[in-house]
């Protein structure tokens, strides 16, 4: 009885602390660009930021909502506040917490899971912060090399490099689905080359097309399953 009472008090305080810390982090992260801008004698172009938000922000909003709904039950209260503050969910925090949970055999929704998830995600975040801090310290002396003209083509092609890797990663999950948006987009950019300067806006029709096709196929397979 006493233990349950203590745990409930812990959870209540975790929510209080988690909310306060999340709001503070939000304020700092949104405030930093303005502060840095001031330091550099400028300010963010709010119009351009709003247009950028309408193109890519919407995609990431949907992604964030799905991530929140799916991962929060696995992570519990403390774990989810920390995970959404520290990021790198799919590539690190979720598998890390799942691994720790399996090692100690904690079940979803239990007090034990709440504690283990929080311990795991806090540790994981601290390791990342430490590794990155040490790495950045070592990177400073390398700056002249990083800024050399020979390396500039590399930095000019960061985005194609990212999307090449992502193409393999996602296309292999559903190559049949990928063919239609890829062909449509390629043809569109061939016939209207001026659109290449608005690629991020073209994510919306391309994403909508892929989601629509995926939904139609999913509905068809569900109908088939229901009939069987």
């Amino acid at each position, binding site marked *: 009885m006493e*233990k349950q009472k203590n*745990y409930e008090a812990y959870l209540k305080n975790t*929510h209080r*602390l*988690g909310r306060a810390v*999340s709001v503070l*982090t*939000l304020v700092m*992260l949104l405030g930093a660009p303005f502060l*840095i801008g001031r*330091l550099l004698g400028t*300010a963010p172009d709010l119009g351009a930021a709003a247009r*950028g938000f309408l193109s890519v*922000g919407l*995609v990431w909003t*949907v992604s964030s909502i799905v991530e*929140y709904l*799916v991962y929060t039950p696995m992570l519990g209260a403390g774990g989810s506040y*920390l995970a*959404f503050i520290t990021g*790198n*969910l*799919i590539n690190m925090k979720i598998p890390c917490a799942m691994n720790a*949970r399996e090692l*100690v055999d904690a079940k979803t929704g239990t007090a034990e899971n709440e504690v283990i998830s929080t*311990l*795991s995600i806090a*540790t994981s*975040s*601290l390791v990342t912060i430490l*590794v*990155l*801090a040490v790495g*950045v310290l070592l*990177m400073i002396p390398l700056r002249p090399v990083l800024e050399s003209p020979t390396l500039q*083509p*590399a*930095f000019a092609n*960061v*985005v194609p490099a*990212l*999307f*090449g*890797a*992502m193409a393999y*990663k*996602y296309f292999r999950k*559903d190559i049949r*689905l*990928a063919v239609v948006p890829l062909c*449509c*987009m*390629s043809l569109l*950019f061939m016939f209207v080359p001026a659109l290449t300067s608005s*690629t991020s806006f073209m994510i919306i029709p*391309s*994403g909508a097309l*892929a*989601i629509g096709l*995926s939904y139609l196929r999913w509905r068809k397979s569900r109908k088939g399953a229901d009939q069987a």
Partner: protein
Amino acid sequence: MSVLDQLNGSGIYLICGGIVLFIAIVCVVFLVRAWKAGKALGMDTVRMKRAITSSATFSLLPSVGILLGVLALSGSLGIPWPWLRLSVIGALHYETQVADAAAEQLGIRLGQDPMTTQAFATIALLMSACIMWGMILTTLFNKKYLKKLQGKDPAAKKIGGFGDLAMVAMFIGMVSAYLGSYIGGFVSGNGRFTFSGSWTPLLVAAVSALAMAGFTWLSEKKHWDWLDNFSIAGSMLLGMTAAVLVGH
């Protein structure tokens, strides 16, 4: 002083470092509270220590992969901002794409055109704004959502259906738009169907995809699971190396 020098200035290090330090303190507070709560619940401290140790070792390699992401972004955004973004909240694929979209709205190409201080501030703002939803949702709904889940089937089961497929489809759509633009840029970049546009982005994307295929093969067939942690950053670096080799 170049813009990149300014972006690597001590003032920016101080701002970014301060936020990273704050998050590190938050992690320590959550860690200590969870440890104490576990002890109060009568949990075995050996198991709790095991969870901590395994999480630390598990995170070491992916963290080095994330560090390569800082390296990849440092050429256009300086070191401190990518350091902050990838230490807190961000992920490499997200940061690169949002930075590129913001640059596009400002009429510059990330890494190709010279960065301006205003472009940087705008890019930084968009990077912060686009990924804030997870934090907003946890702040507003975590307590109610977790309460609702208690005693019921995990909601993940209900959402699982089309949610996962929609996410994959959305990313396929996003990747298709970018690859389509590289194909279109090559075919019609210097006049419709002249096939004389820049082919470097296509080459870089192809090398990066091939590298990703190699990493995936090694990870899945040879069971080099640790390689997963480096696959995206490693593929990107190989793709970027191809750009250096062709010199465009």
